[in-house]
């Protein structure tokens, strides 16, 4: 599957006589009298058994919400509940809704700002941690502190940091003579503030995923490369990155999906009782916020459901694009 010229298997065959069996089962499993019938059933059936739990839970708890939301999106809904079947009218309205497309633009913009630097930094951080270091456990745990901190509290902290009058960032900017920025007033500034919040939170998380993947890379590869005279940077890009490709693909797809669903951080950033609007001119309103506003604040659950399905569609498209890019790169 990897596009790299040399596969794991080749290297292992070259370096080892035979695979180490440190974790090989100690005693052979019960005898042939078990019958090859049972083992055939096991081989054919067990995969389905293994993946079944997900589908069972999903069938009970995930399927009905999907169907229900789709059904609701075909209706007009108000405070009194179902107000009549309207077919695809909600979707039609959605296509011409400037606020929806504004939210889409905001979301994609923040997604890019919150994903690209984040994953790059996570990669670098993981490689820094993938060394023999003193105080290793503490260092590795240290970069994970952001995830442990409660989202609401972090949101308030960052809102303060990016406050117009009393915020630290403006204070620092003031030291170098830059006029204070009203972070909530513009798209570019609010996107930066929110992306910083998101990046701060998830860099450690993604670096841990990369790190765990890096642990599975045989050391011998690096040894062989060092013997060949490859620099550390070269080793990083030629060995490490390709070898953790599945993890990379994973983080890209998951970050895309999570980015499209961005909700809590911008909500807390926008203060006040109408925070869901994401700024006075919806500068940082994401599609999830828009969906929530329509469904639960304007009591138009039908329209909100249509927005939800559009989001699903957009996420799918984006995830596929990202997957194709990541797979082909390098």
């Amino acid at each position, binding site marked *: 599957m990897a596009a790299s010229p040399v596969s794991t298997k080749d290297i292992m065959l070259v370096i080892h006589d035979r695979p180490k069996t440190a974790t090989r089962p100690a005693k052979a499993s019960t005898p042939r009298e078990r019958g090859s019938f049972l083992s055939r059933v096991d081989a054919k059936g067990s995969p389905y058994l*293994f*993946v079944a739990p997900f589908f069972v839970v999903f069938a009970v708890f995930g399927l009905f919400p999907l169907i229900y939301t789709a059904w609701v999106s075909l209706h007009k809904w108000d405070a009194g509940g179902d107000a009549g079947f309207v077919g695809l009218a909600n979707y039609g309205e959605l296509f011409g809704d400037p606020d929806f497309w504004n939210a889409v633009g905001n979301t994609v913009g923040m997604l890019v700002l919150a994903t690209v630097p984040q994953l790059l930094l996570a990669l670098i951080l993981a490689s*820094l941690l993938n060394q023999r270091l003193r105080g290793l456990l503490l*260092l590795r745990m240290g970069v994970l502190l952001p995830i442990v901190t409660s989202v609401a509290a972090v949101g308030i902290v960052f809102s*303060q940091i990016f406050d117009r009058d009393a915020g630290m960032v403006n204070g620092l900017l003031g030291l170098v003579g830059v006029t204070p920025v009203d972070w909530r007033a513009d798209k570019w500034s609010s996107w930066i503030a929110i992306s910083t919040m998101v990046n701060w939170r998830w860099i450690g998380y993604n670096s841990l995923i990369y790190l765990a993947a890096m642990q599975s890379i045989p050391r011998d590869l690096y040894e062989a490369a060092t013997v060949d005279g490859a620099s550390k940077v070269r080793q990083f890009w030629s060995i490490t990155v390709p070898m953790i490709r599945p993890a990379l693909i994973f983080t890209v797809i998951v970050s895309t999906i999570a980015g499209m669903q961005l909700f809590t951080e911008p909500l807390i950033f926008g203060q006040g009782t109408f925070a869901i609007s994401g700024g006075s001119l919806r500068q940082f309103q994401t599609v999830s916020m828009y969906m929530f506003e329509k469904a639960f604040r304007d009591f138009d659950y039908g329209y909100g459901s249509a927005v939800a399905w559009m989001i699903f569609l957009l996420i799918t498209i984006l995830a596929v694009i990202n997957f194709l890019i990541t797979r082909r790169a390098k």
Partner: protein
Amino acid sequence: MRKSSPLTYFTLVIAIALSAFPLYWLFVVATRSNDVVGDWPPPLLPGGNLFDNISRLFSAEEANFLKGMVNSAIASVIVTVAVVFFSTLAGFAFAKLQFRGRNGLLLVILATMMIPVQMGIIPLYMIMVQLGWQDRLQAVIVPFLVSAFGVFLMRQYAERAVPDELVEAARIDGCTTFRIYRTVVLPALRPGAAVLGLFTFMSTWNEFLWPLAVLEADNPTVQFSLSQLSTSYYTDYTLMFAGALVATVPLLLVFLAFGRQIIGGIMEGAVKA
């Protein structure tokens, strides 16, 4: 083995300082006696009111904080164990076992990750009404026993971390697939599974929207409890941050516990293959 330079240490220290700062600030506000959140310059030194604030926190009736912590602990443990188990199982299957419809099923699982969660709340609530699980802990546990994210993550790890040769060898020896899972796959997946366990615990612990919807203030989870400390018009930040701090402690403990697993996995990885 790569030698680590002073530059590495320096960068890491900066990284940790940045990571830890908001948590530190949380701590500072939680130790103060009146609201310093909006102050300029911001307070950087802790005060002496931590225990006052914490005792106010636990005696705040509207928050039911202790119950919230206990409920969250129960829910998080159960969900984490279940998710890690089912995800490693399914991840192994998708990565290493051949079966018809494998890719299609995987795509379906991936697709479910893309559904925005907020809209599912009303219909999921309807299901809870049918089951009689309103305001019961089952409602925040059972729907989450398997996670698409977990399956996907474990599949990606299993692809690289589980050596095909060992699986083959075990099969030739006549092991059932489950035995292969137990003896070959699980140990190989240990670092990844530890990561998944950590994240699952954390995300269950931090879950807010659904517990808010299905539970009431008499049977809350911890984030719901915390939100009860404020009303639309007034938030006592010293109290709320004290709560956020106390709510973070169990996560830190789990952190440390799982952290060793990840390091342990590293040592094994050096020996394996």
